[in-house]
Each structure stands twice: as C-alpha cells, then as structure tokens.
C-alpha cells in the first residue's frame, strides 16, 4: 500500500470503529437497563457504557469482543478442533475454490460456445440470465437435497451452489471479451486465411484476458457467498455458514459476527489474489506498468 493511501484508509477504519462502538452502546443499553432494574441496583454512565460492551449475548457486540472471539477461535484453538474458526473457514474455502474453479471453466466454455455459434448465442444466453433471477436461497436447499438423493454429499453440492453463482459473471464477461477484437484485427486474420482455432488462440483469447480477470473478481466473491449459503441447509455441520446458523440458533451474536468478519476477510483476500494474478498476467502481456 502506497504512503499516499495509508492515511485515508486509517481514517476510514477509525470512523467505522467509532460508529461501531457508538452503535454498540446505543443498541445494548435497553437490555443492560433491564438487568439493572431487575437487580434493583444503582448505576452511572461509565458503568453502563462498560457493561454494554461486556454482555455475553449483545444485540451488537463491540469490536474488541469480536476480536477476542476470533483470536480465541483461531490462534488458541487447534485447527482440527470443531470450535476452531480456521477449521470452519477451511471447509468453506475449499467449497468456494472448487465451485469457483468449476464456475470459471463452465463460464468460459459457455462463452466460447456462445461466441462461435449463433444457435447457442440465441438459445443459451436467455437461460443463463434466467438462472440468475432465481433467489439462491430458494434453490440452494433443493440442490443439496437432490444431490443427496443421488448420493452426492459433502464438498461437491456446496461447490455446485458456488458454481451456480460464479459462472454467470464469467459468461457475461467472456462473451464481451471474446468479442472485443476490433473489425480490422479480425479482417487481418482473414487476410492470413487463419482458421477458427488460430483466431481464437492468437486473437480472441488474449483480447479477453482483462475481461476474464474482472469477471473472476466478482465470481470469487460470490462463490464464497454461494458456499456459505450452501452450508445453511445442511444442518449446520461445519463451515462459516454453519457457524452463522448455530450462532443464530443460540443467540451467540459474538460468534455470528466473528464468522461474518472472517468471511469478509476471506473474500477480500480472494479478490486481491485474483487481482494479483491479473496484474501478473497483464504485465507479462506487455501492459503498461
């Protein structure tokens, strides 16, 4: 991160923290007052503020409570433990990555078919778009149940929900990318009597790289969403989605928030990894640095 960006980023983080702490006090006060009332004890403002940030099941946990929870469930727990956040994050991450990989390949294959075949263009594209109008929350349990019935369980069904979400931006981006070459670049290939395969590998594919990476950034983030959603109907066995669900069953808001923060950090890391791959590939392709 360049020196010119550090200060603005820190300012934004500080502002978020301040708002979060203020919201913590505000949202947790009613319950805390009830406690005081039942105990019939007197209280003052500093006590109230301190107590709102130390509840076991707060409406909104304070940032440091979430930080402590994350610390305890990552660093202080063995990664093999069912209570380790690293263990759950890995379960979700593996489904995310598998789903993302399948989704990207599927997206590219569909885009190639759409670009090279008019019939596919007309017949497939409407279905691709229609597929995304169905709420994923509605279809995820069906996918899990149907695949379970045919004997598929565990990683793959969750990954397929990630795929369901992530192939879409790749199809749309790659159709655009594979059609990106200008008329004169295509004419040039025609003057060489180049075959369809040569036009694809020497012109369309390289032209589409910036589009591919832009699509993959979106795809990897929604893959994670897909994997988490896919964990909800499985009875909350393992994964960040399971942590979210278990947390909400038992009112463990701190657990929910720590799982949410972990998911957000994971998404940020995945997106920046795709970004790094993007920079690397485009630099190798001679892009201005």
């Amino acid at each position: 991160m360049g020196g010119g960006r550090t200060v603005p980023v820190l300012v934004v983080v500080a502002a978020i923290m301040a708002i979060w702490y203020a919201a913590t006090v505000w949202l947790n006060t009613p319950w805390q007052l009830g406690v005081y009332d039942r105990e019939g004890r007197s209280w003052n403002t500093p006590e109230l503020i301190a107590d709102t940030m130390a509840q076991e099941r707060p409406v909104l946990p304070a940032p440091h409570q979430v930080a402590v929870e994350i610390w305890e469930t990552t660093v202080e727990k063995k990664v093999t433990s069912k209570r380790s956040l690293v263990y759950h994050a890995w379960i979700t991450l593996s489904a995310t990555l598998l789903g993302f990989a399948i989704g990207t390949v599927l997206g590219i294959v569909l885009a190639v078919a759409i670009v090279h075949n008019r019939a596919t263009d007309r017949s497939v594209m409407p279905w691709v778009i229609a597929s995304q109008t169905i709420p994923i929350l509605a279809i995820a349990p069906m996918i899990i149940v149907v695949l379970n019935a045919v004997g598929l369980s565990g990683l793959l069904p969750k990954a397929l929900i990630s795929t369901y979400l992530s192939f879409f931006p790749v199809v749309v981006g790659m159709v655009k990318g594979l059609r990106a070459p200008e008329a004169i670049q295509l004419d040039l290939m025609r003057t060489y009597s180049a075959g369809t395969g040569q036009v694809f590998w020497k012109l369309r594919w390289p032209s589409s790289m910036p589009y591919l990476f832009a699509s993959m950034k979106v795809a990897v983030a929604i893959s994670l969403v897909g994997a988490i959603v896919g964990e909800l109907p499985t009875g909350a066995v393992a994964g960040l989605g399971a942590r979210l669900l278990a947390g909400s069953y038992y009112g463990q808001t701190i657990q929910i928030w720590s799982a949410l923060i972990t998911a957000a950090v994971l998404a940020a890391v995945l997106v920046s990894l795709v970004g790094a791959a993007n920079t690397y590939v485009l630099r190798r392709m001679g892009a201005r640095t």
Partner: protein
Amino acid sequence: MQTAVPTGATPGAHPVIRASNLDLTFQTGDGPVRALSNVSLDIAKGDFVSFIGPSGCGKTTLLRVIADLEQPTGGSITVNGVSPEQARRDRAYGYVFQAAGLYPWRNIARNVALPLEIMGYSKAEQRERVARTLDLVNLTGFENKFPWQLSGGMQQRASIARALAFDADILLMDEPFGALDEIVRDHLNEQLLQLWARTTKTIAFVTHSIPEAVYLSTKIVVMSPRPGRVTDVIESTLPRERPLDIRETPEFLEIAHRVREGLRAGHSYEDV
C-alpha cells in the same frame, strides 16, 4: 529494379489484378448504396497503383474486394489469375490497414511473426524473416519493444513489416499513412518507394492525398463517389527513382493537375 523500366508491364503479360465491370451494392437500412459501379481495371506486375478520391468513392471497398474482404455483386475480378478467395487462401497478398492494428500483447518481433506462425513457418525461418523485414522498414533494435512504446509512424512501419514477412508479391495498403503527420508521412513515403524498388512487389495503395498519389505511383486511378466509379487512369511519366524534391518539378505538378482535373470531372469537389 533500379533502371527506369517503362511503367506498366510488358504488353501481353497477364495482369496481376484484373477487374471488369465490377459492381458492389451494399444493402443498408436507408436502402441500397452503390459503392462500386462498373469498375474495370488492370494492374500489371510491379505496378505501384494509387486509388485516389474523396470519401465514399469506393476506393477502400475496391481494395477490400481485391482482398476478398467484400464480395462484389456484379462483374468479375481475378487476382493472380484466380478468384480473390483463392488468392487469399494462397496468401497472395499482404494487407496494411489504416491503423497499425498491432496486437498490444505481442512485442514487435512477435507481431511481425504473427502471419508466419499462422502460416506454419519454422521457428528458425520465423526469426530469419522477422529480422529481415524489420531491417527493410528500419526497425532493427526494436524487436522486444511493445507497440505502445513506439511512435505512430514506427507502429505503422511495423505493420508494413508484418505484411511483408511472408512471400506475398502483392501489397494492399489502405491509407496506411492517413493518420500520421506530414513530416512522418514524407519520410515513410520515401521509405516505401525504396522498399518497393528493393522488392518486386505489386502495390495497390489507397489515399486521399494528391501529392502522395503522384509521388508514389506508376499508375493513378482517380475515383468519384455516388456511385463509386473510376473517372480517370493516369500513367505516371515520372522516373522510378524519385527524390522528395521531385515534387517541385513541372512534370510532377502537371500530373497532380491532371489528377485534380479528374477529381473535378467526377464532381468530387461538389457538396463536400
């Protein structure tokens, strides 16, 4: 090629490009547009032919018909004695577009090697040809530069090298220097003539600059719009050896005058 051969080819030789009564009508949303009307033309081997005329006169369309990038709706045309499609499949011509159209992800050497890769030349042959053609256009030393690192003129020279890299003996050039400034253009015109003298290529060159057409050509085809047609074909009397200052000689000005007359006769100066 250094001797002053009379322009055109020896009589009776089969022309490299022969068009007769060529017609091309585009079907557009606003109804049919006649881009070419009754165009007949012979281009002999070793000719440097310029097509000149205002926008819409069909000069680019004619070049694209020769290259099999457009299909005529009437008349006939042969390139090297066969159909344009067959000539394209035989890789009979190199085409230089108005924009250099280099692939930004390939360095200059690999851009020039593009047609060679497609046509299946061996790696060693590719290297040898890239070196040779880059030398022809004075770009030796720029092999590993990417297009954006080169000026517009150098990019256009690289695109000419790309068209010369394989053994096509016809070079089709569609306003290749149209987007460049006057000084660079003069320089490239001079280089193009030297290149033409060193190779034995037949060149068809589209331009809308009268001095450029007269300076470069052995034959100037004057065209007019609505419908696109040939109004005059001028055989140049200038020698093949042409220094830049030939453009101030009375002979040069005489030919330029005739071109302008041809354009005027085709109503090219009206309603522009």
